[in-house]
């Protein structure tokens, strides 16, 4: 019964997508036109190949010729001017062009902008049609679009642009890596660093040699026409194809929401194997030109691995420190703070590439090192800017990369050799599976949290190849490697296979394998609540226990960090802040909680008794012996509320997702707390309306205001009284001893707090006052902060000293002073 509605929705979505598609088609049509125009000397005299542009050119021509006509009709007035100019400049007299078509001038930026626009429109389009994007991952769709565009350009007769390795490595790749590095979940990364390194280094080496040598064996078979490919060439190919690609992994994995551990393992591996790839690539490329390979060469190669990786990290760290240091001084020019982050990171990347070190590792190191200090120094808005820019650039980059992959497939010269390609594919898969299995067996000996077979499967299956392999292949010199086209064909085939087949099937496979969540349907409400409670409890205890294993040196690092580094790199007193901010937040939350659940407290030590509360609270359901059969809807509603609202424990469910900005847990908690406060205030207002405690005659607001105005004690909390809670809670919620303690602690805590910088909340901070709904004609002078209604005031008096000592001043407010 849902089908027609779904179809309608789909059709409607398609309808909405039409303008996007039309726009895209227009752009696509424009591209070849512009290409052709760029090659012509002048626009007017050429017959353009594409039919659609003829009209355009004709229009342009007519416009340019029109002024000529006009001009000649008024010879008299302009003649002297013309002659003078002609005499002065010696120029050929021609009519002043009102409208010109000068494409060469803007060609390159125009085309770049057009491509980027195409990429963005594609992204838009995919999300408008949700049905497809739920089956096919975005990367596949983008490659298909690239194929189409490439085909279109070719059909027009032009040469589609191939993904230039320079463009790729220098412009398209860095944003993605920086985005990944800056938001790297550092804790999981370092906890699993050993595993990741083993996978990255040993795994990639194993893949490269396995594929390379087997391919060499295959090449030796007579009759395939491949016998001329030497061992080194094969090994080179193996090293190119064996690297797991971070772009592809990110693109596919973020849509399937696997748990954080697997995500960080595969992703971390894809990042760190860059060093290995770089080394192997350069190694084999050099060696292929030699005739013989000596032992020293091998040893040098081995050494260069360390140089490349550690050097890259070192470069990154240096730039990161410089960046952090710079950010210390930017308090006066907030606007350019994000730029520092981007520039220093990019410089780190370029500097590493300069020395043939691993640029990716440099970039990651720079981002990771820079981040904690920069975040402490920069303003909140700069922080948001950095987040947004990085996400934006990396998104666009990724889209462009995939589109270009598609275009390059169409554009490039291919040499298809069945044996080679099929062999590559099969060997890659086998190598990956064997590698993962073997390494996991080895790693599990040292891990506490073992990798289950399901995990292993996903790791093996998630080893996607991508554009890096293609670009590396493209970089090969045709002179030394005449079989370059064949290599490229094979690389593209493997990329397509992994992205399409593996990318599309990984989601259903993950769902299939993740059996755990599906079984429970009818858990009782109690069970759900308790499960969540225990989850939180476990997380808390985990936090208390601290990190595992690397504890010792990590602590040392932290101490070093705090003592020396933070002082250098963080401006002013902010190096101490984060902990206190958390403390402050917590205090706020506590009070908000106390306020909000004021309706349900059982203990009442003060004057306002339970009687009033019971009168006010009409919602207590009658107690029944047997479980009342709540209607199904009600029950369902309760379950739904629980499911949606139980505060999830932080790590279990939120893995790194590219498209959503990673929310700061403090920020989230802070926002929640602010919302709670709002609710608390609303609740108080409601309660105030219920309260009728007429102890004296108050009538006009004027009198009560006068009373307040004349009684300074109405405002100021007595700072010397030990048990004084500043917080004025609404009358129905009496204070329990615990909450009093809280506020005391808060007071003490507050004393040490630096003024919080940019809290746009009113700086009442811990002091919450019961706000009445503003009575008409209320004077602004008296409203802020003070409780207006005298009943509130009286309660405040009552509650302010929960001890048995009677308050001698209790009567004071009711004696109008000077009245």
């Amino acid at each position: 019964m849902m089908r027609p509605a779904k179809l309608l929705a789909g059709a409607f979505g398609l309808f909405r997508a039409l303008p996007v598609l039309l726009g895209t088609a227009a752009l696509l049509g424009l591209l070849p036109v512009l290409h052709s125009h760029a090659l012509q000397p002048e626009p007017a005299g050429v017959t353009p190949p594409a039919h659609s542009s003829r009209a355009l050119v004709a229009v342009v021509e007519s416009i340019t010729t029109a002024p000529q006509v006009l001009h000649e009709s008024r010879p008299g007035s302009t003649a002297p001017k013309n002659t003078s100019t002609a005499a002065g400049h010696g120029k050929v007299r021609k009519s002043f062009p009102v409208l010109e078509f000068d494409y060469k001038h803007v060609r390159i930026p125009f085309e770049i902008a057009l491509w980027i626009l195409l990429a963005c429109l594609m992204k838009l389009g995919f999300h408008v049609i949700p049905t497809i994007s739920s089956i096919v991952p975005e990367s596949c769709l983008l490659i298909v679009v690239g194929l189409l565009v490439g085909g279109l350009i070719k059909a027009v007769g032009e040469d589609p642009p191939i993904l230039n390795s320079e463009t790729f490595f220098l412009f398209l790749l860095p944003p993605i890596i920086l985005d990944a590095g800056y938001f790297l979940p550092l804790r999981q990364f370092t906890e699993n660093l050993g595993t990741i390194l083993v996978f990255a280094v040993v795994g990639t080496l194993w893949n490269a040699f396995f594929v390379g040598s087997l391919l060499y064996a295959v090449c030796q078979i007579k009759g395939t026409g491949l016998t001329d490919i030497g061992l080194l060439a094969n090994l080179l190919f193996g090293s190119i194809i064996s690297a797991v690609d971070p772009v592809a992994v990110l693109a596919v994995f973020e849509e399937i929401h696997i748990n954080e551990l697997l995500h960080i393992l595969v992703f971390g591996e894809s990042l760190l194997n860059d060093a290995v790839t770089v080394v192997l690539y350069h190694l084999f490329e050099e060696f292929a030109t030699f005739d013989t390979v000596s032992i020293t060469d091998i040893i040098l190669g081995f050494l260069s691995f360390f140089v490349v990786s550690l050097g890259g990290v070192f470069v990154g760290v240096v730039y990161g420190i410089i960046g952090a240091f710079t950010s210390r001084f930017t308090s006066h020019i907030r606007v350019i703070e994000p730029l520092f982050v981007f520039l220093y990171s990019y410089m780190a990347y370029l500097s590493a590439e300069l020395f043939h070190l691993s640029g990716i590792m440099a970039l990651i190191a720079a981002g990771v090192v820079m981040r904690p200090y920069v975040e402490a120094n920069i303003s909140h808005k700069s922080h948001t800017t950095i987040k947004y820019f990085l996400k934006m650039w990396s998104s666009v980059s990724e889209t462009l990369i995939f589109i270009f992959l598609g275009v390059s497939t169409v554009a490039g010269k291919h040499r298809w050799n069945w044996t080679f390609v099929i062999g590559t594919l099969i060997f890659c898969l086998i190598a990956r599976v064997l590698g993962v299995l073997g390494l996991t067996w080895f790693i599990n000996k040292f891990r506490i949290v073992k990798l289950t077979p399901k995990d292993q499967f996903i790791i093996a299956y998630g080893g996607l190849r991508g554009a890096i392999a293609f670009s590396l292949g493209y970089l090969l010199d045709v002179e030394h490697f005449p079989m370059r086209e064949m290599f490229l064909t094979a690389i593209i085939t493997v990329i397509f296979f992994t992205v399409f087949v593996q990318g599309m099937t990984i989601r259903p496979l993950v769902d299939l394998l993740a059996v755990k969540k599906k079984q429970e349907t009818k858990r009782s409400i109690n069970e759900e609540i308790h499960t969540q409670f225990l989850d939180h409890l476990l997380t808390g205890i985990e936090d208390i226990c601290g990190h595992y294993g690397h504890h010792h040196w990590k602590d040392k690092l932290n101490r070093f960090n705090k003592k020396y580094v933070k002082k250098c790199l963080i401006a002013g007193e902010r190096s101490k802040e984060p902990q206190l901010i958390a403390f402050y937040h917590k205090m706020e939350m506590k009070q908000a909680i106390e306020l909000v659940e004021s309706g349900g407290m059982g203990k009442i030590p003060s004057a306002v008794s339970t009687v009033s509360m019971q009168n006010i609270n009409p919602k207590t359901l009658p107690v029944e012996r047997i479980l009342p059969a709540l209607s199904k809807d009600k029950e369902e509603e309760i379950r739904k509320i629980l499911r949606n609202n139980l505060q999830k424990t932080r790590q279990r469910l939120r893995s790194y997702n590219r498209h959503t900005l990673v929310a700061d847990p403090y920020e989230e908690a802070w926002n929640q707390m602010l919302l709670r406060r709002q609710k608390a205030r609303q609740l108080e207002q409601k309660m105030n309306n219920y309260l009728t405690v007429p102890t004296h005659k108050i009538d006009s607001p004027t009198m009560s205001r006068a009373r307040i105005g004349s009684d300074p004690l109405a405002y100021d909390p007595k700072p010397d009284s030990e048990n004084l809670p500043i917080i004025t809670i609404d009358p129905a919620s009496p204070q329990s001893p615990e909450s009093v303690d809280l506020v005391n602690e808060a007071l003490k805590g507050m004393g040490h707090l630096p003024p919080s910088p940019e809290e746009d909340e009113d700086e009442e901070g811990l002091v919450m006052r019961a706000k009445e709904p503003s009575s008409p004609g209320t004077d602004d002078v008296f409203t802020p902060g003070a409780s207006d209604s005298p009943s509130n005031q009286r309660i405040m008096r009552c509650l302010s000293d929960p001890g048995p000592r009677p308050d001698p001043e209790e009567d004071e407010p009711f004696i109008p002073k000077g009245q």
Partner: protein
Amino acid sequence: MGGQNSQPLGVPEQEAIMAETGFSQANVLRLYQRFQALDKDEKGCLSKYDLEGIGHLAVNPIGDRIIDAFFQDGRETVDFRTFIHILAHFRPVEGSAGSKGINSRLSKLKFAFQLYDQDKDGKISRAEMLQVLRMMLGVQVTDEQLECITDRTIQEADEDGDNAISFEEFAKCVEKLNIEQKMSLRILK
């Protein structure tokens, strides 16, 4: 891991602790290092302030309750022995541990129950349940809904009709849950 002992003193009462809690020596050492790391002023014991300094606990909805669980009987500080005693509740259960031992199922349940039952009267009253639910649910839940949920929760579990959940009722509620897994930290093995 137990070989390198960079601490100037050994772990106090190590043997007794190991016997009591069942932790291995390496784990005791590691937890002692953690204890010392948390104890910033090197007083030899932890105060609430130290524990509250753990950032992630601040944003844990029941963070305060967890901290309070360490300071029972209104104490101000907790020494290492108590600290590790409490953490021992979260040791994974090994096979035939039986119902003895700190990390048995019963003991774990009792610990969890304590966290609910703040006034230590042996029952989770409606107010206490309301408090917990408010802490865990977000702000999108209105008060009426919250009251409704609380009532329903208590009704479901309450068998003797006192509008509160006693320990036995609690245990019965969660008997289907895999407590041994839910309340165990693998790193404390």
